[in-house]
């Protein structure tokens, strides 16, 4: 499962967690990558994902567009081809 969501308030990042389970990937897309600039909230979010065996990825092109660097080793950066691979690897996607 791939969950993507535009991130507006920091609390929004935790919302898709009610869908995600072990083996799923949460993909940060569009404005969702802005969360990677925030040092506080993402640490607890990533810890919760790790505890539930949920992978986290972010779309490289959307990071570059917004000038966002990835300082988190737990987050995989993927391009659109990697996004396609994620969709193929999971049986369904939940858009957020």
């Amino acid at each position: 499962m791939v969950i993507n969501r535009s991130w507006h308030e920091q609390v929004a990042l935790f919302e898709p967690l009610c869908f995600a389970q072990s083996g799923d990937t949460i993909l940060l897309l569009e404005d969702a990558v802005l969360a990677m600039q925030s040092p506080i909230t993402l640490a607890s979010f990533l810890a919760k994902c790790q505890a539930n065996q949920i992978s986290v990825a972010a779309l490289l092109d959307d990071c570059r567009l917004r000038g966002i660097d990835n300082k988190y080793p737990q987050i995989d950066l993927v391009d659109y081809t990697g996004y396609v691979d994620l969709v193929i690897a999971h049986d369904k996607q939940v858009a957020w």
Partner: protein
Amino acid sequence: MNVNILVTGALYSSQSAYSALRFCQAAVAAGHSISQVFFYQDGVTQANLYSLPLDDEFDAVNSWVRFSQQTSTPLVVCVSAGERRGLMSDEQVLEHHLGRNAAIDSNGSAHSQFSVAGLGVLHQASLDSERMVTFK
């Protein structure tokens, strides 16, 4: 694999047109096929024939038209969402007598590369495809 695409975000107030197009291009380049792109909710605005961005701005409508022509991918606008938001085929405009001058009106507001159909077409495609991806 066969991927069914659902687009629900508006022109300009969402990035969905750009994201979906980049995804579709990458999928085709990787050897997958897009069974159809279905435009629902505000996504129907991406079919607007009259959209005319500035020269250096991203042109969603014509990018969809080019992608569809190059890959023979069907573009489908939801009829009910389209009628609500004023996206219609030539035939609908005639049927609903919406043109200002009935005698000379043959022009819908949806680009002719987009067909107009019901939500059944979305559901059938989701049953026939191996994957479905939504862009909001």
